[in-house]
């Protein structure tokens, strides 16, 4: 939208080699991307400076030269404040903006109100720290911004992403080694799933389904007519089921019952479906609700490729056979397509699938043969032909992939309770943000969510990997010591967390990691899944839910009360079913 693409502009090794300043915002890099954090620490030992913006005292906040402890939800306030200082002190790169960007006047007016005094008033960040951070970032020879879901999981996440890229553009921190805007992808192949067209609006290679010319390309390759209307996005599917529009859902390698916000709403939708097919390696919380469950091969049981957060395509290799009758996901889809009489699914191996992609979208992957990928540790797309070395750095020389070839600087406005209409009218298409659910007298705390280093998402894999479950055996909620004192809670006590959507019982960890009036927990444990509590309001452009802020009530409960709530959850997620089905599977087919 602002630069022309939605991927990391630069690569990870550049951080340790070239970056003079690293600015981390909304990313718990130390726990969630430990080997990227290593490159940041190596950069620091080379003399680079680290700025971290995070409400929580993460590992990286601890190592920062400047830690900007903003309240949850205030990313735009902070970013606009930084740009206010940079513009006022003329620390921006006027020549780069002139040649390579549009919208600087609008941006200048948008950040005008965000003076250091105003930012301090809203966020508590000292004027001194804000100014120091702005000078440090803008003064660097090469500065990189790393961000993650702490930026995107808000109803105004798109606005925050635009702000991040505004900041990089006005300081000329793009298109050179050690610079860039780097969204850190959470899952091993979330980049690849997007690249391959696992999105409702684009074919593989981000080619729009609404564009006749792109459709014609895939219609020719697949020898069939293709639909021109963009499809539903995940957060829209539950409502479509309730409205009777969607009747069949096929889920593979995901556990949306645990990962969707306000999951009671989602579970009800699944129960209304005429057909739910779940294809996975375990009988996940989602699979337990299915009409048909298909056993899939795991990661070390198949050939193929993953694309990491730097657009690096790497070969995945089969080490062992899958158990029993489990099959690879690609085999299952091909077998099903053939059962339905479709042509074009006769692949004998993953190389044939990959080669089809290379032929259809040569501009991105044409040059990446399996033979080449076998010889190197991956190649970064675009890599259009076999002589091409891949593209570690995007937008070299300020050449952006927007229709104009220039970066779009967007006016982004934010206030927790909303921005005045008069203010909004001053700008052409501004992005405007406010927090969906603020604390009030009854729900007095701010709840924010994320992951822990030992576990991964809904715990399907890590909770069944014994050493990991030993070090991270149960859910914990982080509570600030000041709040713990007021609530008369001690470390190890149990509390009930209640929002307007639901409640869970959690063990307390009294810690300075969270600021006052803010609590943090995760979605790793069915026993106390935070996604029973989160709000389902979404960003209007990206449709990302606001996982990072909800208003919550905290009450101390007894161990007996906590146990009673656990038993309730065990019933809700039909936990006993897994053992039953394992016993059935061991008896073999009986149909």
């Amino acid at each position, binding site marked *: 939208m602002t630069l022309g693409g939605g991927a990391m502009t630069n690569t*990870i090794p550049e951080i340790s080699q070239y970056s003079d300043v690293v600015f981390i915002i909304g990313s718990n890099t130390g726990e969630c991307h430990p080997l990227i954090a290593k490159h940041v620490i190596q950069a620091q030992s080379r003399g680079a400076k680290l700025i971290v913006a995070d409400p929580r005292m993460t590992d990286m906040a601890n190592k920062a030269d400047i830690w900007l402890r903003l309240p949850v939800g205030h990313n735009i306030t902070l970013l606009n404040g930084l740009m206010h200082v940079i513009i006022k002190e003329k620390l921006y790169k006027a020549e780069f903006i002139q040649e390579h960007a549009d919208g600087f006047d609008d941006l200048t007016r948008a950040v005008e109100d965000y003076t250091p005094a105003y930012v301090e008033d809203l966020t508590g960040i000292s004027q001194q720290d804000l100014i120091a951070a702005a000078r440090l970032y803008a003064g660097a020879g090469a500065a990189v911004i790393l961000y993650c879901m702490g930026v995107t999981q808000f109803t105004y996440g798109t606005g925050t992403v635009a702000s991040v890229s505004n900041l990089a553009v006005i300081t000329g921190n793009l298109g050179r080694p050690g610079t860039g805007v780097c969204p*850190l992808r959470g899952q091993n*192949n979330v980049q690849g799933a997007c690249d391959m067209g696992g999105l409702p609006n684009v074919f593989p290679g981000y080619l729009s*389904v609404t564009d006749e010319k792109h459709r014609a390309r895939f219609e020719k390759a697949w020898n069939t007519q293709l639909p021109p209307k963009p499809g539903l996005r995940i957060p829209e599917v539950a409502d479509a089921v309730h409205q009777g529009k969607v009747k069949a859902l096929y889920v593979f390698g*995901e556990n949306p019952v645990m990962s969707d916000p306000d999951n009671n709403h989602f579970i009800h939708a699944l129960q209304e479906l005429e057909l739910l097919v779940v294809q996975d390696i375990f009988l996940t919380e989602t699979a337990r609700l299915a009409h048909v469950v298909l056993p899939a091969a795991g990661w070390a049981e198949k050939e193929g*490729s993953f694309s*990491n957060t730097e657009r690096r395509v790497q070969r995945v290799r089969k080490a062992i056979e899958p158990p029993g009758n*489990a099959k690879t996901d690609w085999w299952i889809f091909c077998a099903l397509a053939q059962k339905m009489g479709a042509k074009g699914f006769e692949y004998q191996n993953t190389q044939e699938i990959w080669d089809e992609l290379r032929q259809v979208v040569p501009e991105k992957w044409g040059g990446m043969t399996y033979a080449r990928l076998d010889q190197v540790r991956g190649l970064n797309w675009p890599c259009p032909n076999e002589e091409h070395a891949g593209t570690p750095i995007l937008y070299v020389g300020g050449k952006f992939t927007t229709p104009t070839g220039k970066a779009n600087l967007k006016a982004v406005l934010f206030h927790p309770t909303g921005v005045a209409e008069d203010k909004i009218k001053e700008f052409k298409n501004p992005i405007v943000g406010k927090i969906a659910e603020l604390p009030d007298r009854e729900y007095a705390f701010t709840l924010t969510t994320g992951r822990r280093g030992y576990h991964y998402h809904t715990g399907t894999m890590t909770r069944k990997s014994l*050493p990991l479950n030993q070090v991270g055996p149960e859910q914990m909620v982080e509570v600030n010591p000041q709040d713990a004192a007021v609530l008369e809670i001690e470390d190890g006590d149990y509390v009930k967390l209640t929002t307007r959507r639901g409640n869970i019982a959690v063990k307390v960890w009294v810690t300075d990691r969270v600021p006052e009036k803010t609590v943090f927990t995760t979605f790793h444990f069915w026993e106390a899944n935070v996604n029973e509590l989160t709000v389902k309001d979404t960003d209007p452009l990206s449709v990302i839910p606001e996982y990072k802020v909800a208003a919550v009530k905290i009450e101390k409960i007894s161990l007996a009360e906590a146990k009673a709530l656990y038993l309730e959850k065990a019933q809700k997620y039909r936990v006993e079913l897994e053992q039953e089905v394992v016993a059935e599977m061991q008896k073999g087919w009986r149909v």
Partner: protein
Amino acid sequence: MKVLTVCPYCGTGCGLNVLVENNRIVGVEADSSHPVSGGELCIKGYFGYKHLEDSRRLTTPLIKKNGKFVPTSWDEALGFIAQRLTDIKQQSGPDAFALFASARATNEENYVAQKFARAVIGTNNIDHCARL
């Protein structure tokens, strides 16, 4: 036997060698030549493979009959799904189908999955948890 591959957890894409004996993974070594992970892994990279041999792995297709999951053959399971999808498409149109693709599966698997939704069913109702 050592098999060079990529860690299945976060988006960093660290390189690792899987150590195999008799079709069992017995350990994981960091790939010292990898440009990102350079000979190191986090705790998930070193120990996160254990779930593969957990006794609760799904080993056969299951169809729910009278509220109970019953083990079945691939032929029957796929035949059942193919019939139901064909009926639903005929009655309610291709957009009555939605597919959640996987940020955990390979590029090739995601390519085939979206091709299935678009070319076989005829809908763009395909998304995955990039947003979640």
